[in-house]
């Protein structure tokens, strides 16, 4: 039986590991998948080898460097490019987009130029720190936007191991598109209407992934890592709530689920960065030696700056920031965190319970 029952082409923008993993999943349900590569050089290489790193490209994936074709041919587009290039990509794509397009992005980072000062702006809890769905809204006329977030390590997906993801969108029809295009026997899809909350899960978990890497790098053991991850989750929720999300998605697949996957082994870039930091490498060397961007480093810097304005205490992010900036050694950082006066264990739930009682 031919499962490829979607005849209209679908596009993935961004030929990184996760982009290709998604393109491969899509290729099981769609007759044609267009995969956009930014440079002609990369496109040529992909066309010739039909392979990227450890991933083979499915036969029905076509490589393109032309965004206008994507806009004209595809109703559904999955942009999966690093957060630092996302806005520029959207600006290039926007002229070819209409409000009838559906965009589901898979980028787990913020849009923010860390060199800029954060101004607390009217009605915006996050200053000028935007999520990718907001960038799509700002740069194009597309309104039906979703994100894909969850424990999706590309290497495991490439090996056809079972996995699942959350498609979040304010629009039910976007979630339906997610089911239709992605769901298969080895890939489950869950829906959520909390777009911002789900995006924040994916972004903030990278901070904790870097931290978990340092714990393993110093070989502090499983107890310490469990302690760190659970405290990290609390910090994520507190940041997330203040940034305009709800606590719920953090407790699901996009939150705890993703956290467990990225904090448990070398398959995550962010985790590897932390591990190498703990083993004494310098951040600049680590960054220059990896060919794909670890979003966690940028996120740590952004949240650290933001916390100063929002007056939220973020001991884990703050410590990681200091490690990255050489203000403190990894060893001292852990001593500091062990001494930090955490009062209650999970305050974010407690507050809600109290709120209901009152």
């Amino acid at each position: 039986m031919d499962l490829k029952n979607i005849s209209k082409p679908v596009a993935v923008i961004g030929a990184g590991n996760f982009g290709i993993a998604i393109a491969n999943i899509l290729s099981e349900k769609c007759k044609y998948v267009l995969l956009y590569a930014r440079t002609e050089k990369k496109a040529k290489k992909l066309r010739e080898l039909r392979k990227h790193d450890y991933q083979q490209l499915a036969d029905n994936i076509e490589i393109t460097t032309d965004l206008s074709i994507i806009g004209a041919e595809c109703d559904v587009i999955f942009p999966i490019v690093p957060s630092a290039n996302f806005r520029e990509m959207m600006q290039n794509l926007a002229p070819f987009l209409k409000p009838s397009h559906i965009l589901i992005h898979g980028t787990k980072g913020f849009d923010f130029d860390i060199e800029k000062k954060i101004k607390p702006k009217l009605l915006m809890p996050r200053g000028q720190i935007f999520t990718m769905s907001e960038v799509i809204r700002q740069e194009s006329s597309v309104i039906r936007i979703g994100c894909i977030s969850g424990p999706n390590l590309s290497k495991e997906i490439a090996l056809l191991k079972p996995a699942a993801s959350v498609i979040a969108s304010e629009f039910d029809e976007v979630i339906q598109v997610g089911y239709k295009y992605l769901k298969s026997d080895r890939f489950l899809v869950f829906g959520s209407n909390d777009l911002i909350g789900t995006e924040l899960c994916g972004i903030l978990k990278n901070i904790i992934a870097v931290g978990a890497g340092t714990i393993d790098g110093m070989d502090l053991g499983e107890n310490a890592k469990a302690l760190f991850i659970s405290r990290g989750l609390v910090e994520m929720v507190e940041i997330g709530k203040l940034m305009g999300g709800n606590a719920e998605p953090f407790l699901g697949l996009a939150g705890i689920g993703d956290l467990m996957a990225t904090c448990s082994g070398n398959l995550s870039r962010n985790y590897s960065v932390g591990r190498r930091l703990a083993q004494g490498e310098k951040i600049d060397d680590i960054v220059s030696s990896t060919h794909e961007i670890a979003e966690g480093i940028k996120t740590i810097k952004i949240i650290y700056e933001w916390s100063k304005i929002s007056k939220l205490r973020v001991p884990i992010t703050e410590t990681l920031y200091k490690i990255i900036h050489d203000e403190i050694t990894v060893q001292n950082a852990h001593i500091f965190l062990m001494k930090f006066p955490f009062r209650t264990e999970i305050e974010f739930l407690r507050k809600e319970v109290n709120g209901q009682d009152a």
Partner: protein
Amino acid sequence: MSNSGPIYKDILKRKNDWPIVNLSQNKNEFLRQVAQSAFDGIIERSGEKTIRELLETTIYREKQRIINNPWRVDPKDELAFWKYIQTKHLNCDERADGEQERQKILLEIIDRYCKEIVGNFNKSSYRFAKSFTTFGFARLLNATRVKGFKSIISRQLDLHDQIHVVGHPEQLRKLAQIGTVVLVPTHFSNLDSILIGWVIQFLGLPPFIYGAGLNLFNIKILAYFMNSLGAYKLDRRKKNPIYLETLKVYSNMALQWGCHSLFFPGGTRSRSGQIESSLKLGLLSTTIEAQRALIQKNSDDSKPIFIVPVVINYQFTLEAPLLINEHLKITGQERYFKESDAYSNSKKITSFLFKFFTKGSDISVSIGRGLDVLGNYVNDEGKSIDQNGNEINIKDYFVKDGNINIDKQREHTYVQILSKRIVEEYYKNNRVYSSHLVAYTAFKMLERSKPKLDLYNLLRLSVDDLEIDYEAFKSNFKKLRKVILKIHAEGNVGVNPRLQKKAEDAISYGLANVGMYHAKPPLVKIKDKIVILNPSTLYYYHNRLEGYGLEKHI
């Protein structure tokens, strides 16, 4: 002659071309369409069991309402009608064709609601009412101004003296010729409907239809104007789904018939004095549904629907003391309360109007830029424009897989987006008067001087605590004015030119105008002190500038 400003010619010369005339001439056909569509909508959304429940609860609630909260405008046969419906409904259970009977009953109820809602527009009484608003207002004006006989004829100019129409009136006129316009003004006072009615005819637009609270029809003088100015009746006591659906379909259908409409999306008057920050989505959603229906019918030739936000800027609100008291009573929880009847007799309103025109106080009506039903700006040709200045085809918002489809959840999300956009436009089009700023400055200074008191205790302070040093006041006023002018320069708020005068003058103009008609003015200057005479109304006027982040600067 004083400041004359432009005189706008009617955009449609022949009255028979007015959509509202078309609608009233074909009233029966229109109502038939409304009833049918409302009926279909309710049936579609309910199974067999729920129609019965729906009828039961509606009958029960209507009977309760008739007993507990009767109004003068209610039809005399109301109780009899609902008793008759109840009996008929009870009989359904014994009949084999009970379900069809229930549907008939449902249609009967919808029919009755339609007839209750429908406006009584009439060309000739519109002309009379129109000339009365203009001429009557002008007569009041001229009674106190010695301008000779000629000035009685040039009445519009004088009214224009008092009421400034600012913003984008020219674009509004253009849009009204291209598509169907929905005006969405802020709502502070019962006079808003009359004022907007005046603005509409002043700008040469054909009459708009609008839903006016049925309670206003209790007041004879208002009822007369509203009936003839195209109002249909909206009864806030009726919260049953049948009524609400009928009302929504009525508005939706009128838009599809091309009738320009007026909604107060805030629902009721702003109790706190603050600009509406959350809007009622029910009526707003009809703009999106109607736009989609038009596109489905006519594809690319469909008439667009435009949303035009309007901010009415008063320096006083007649009902302020009453509104703020209600607000304080219900703060924090939305409890049911009866619409109060104060200021509801014609004499009081006339005497107020007289005061208003003789004493003089600026009112400005800011006409915002036109929006499409998704909140995108439209250009003068009525085309939707995205952030980058590119044209958008509104049809694409309703397209999925290449076809236009109906998706209730999608449209519900669209309404929320539209509502947010309208609120943003309100804040942009709001005009800051020096009276708003003196109220804001004084109240914030009072608040800061007693950091431990909550709002309620603050409002109950004794007279001795209600004095502010004038110099300190002035310096804070200047500081805040600077911030407002900065926001203004960014295009995010309007300002009255007098705000920019020398601080002393701006303050004294502000003090003279803040709540000037109240028996007890909120704020006065006595020697080198600013004295708060009425903290509650001061709080009310201060609220007007909430939401701009000014509190960080004082």
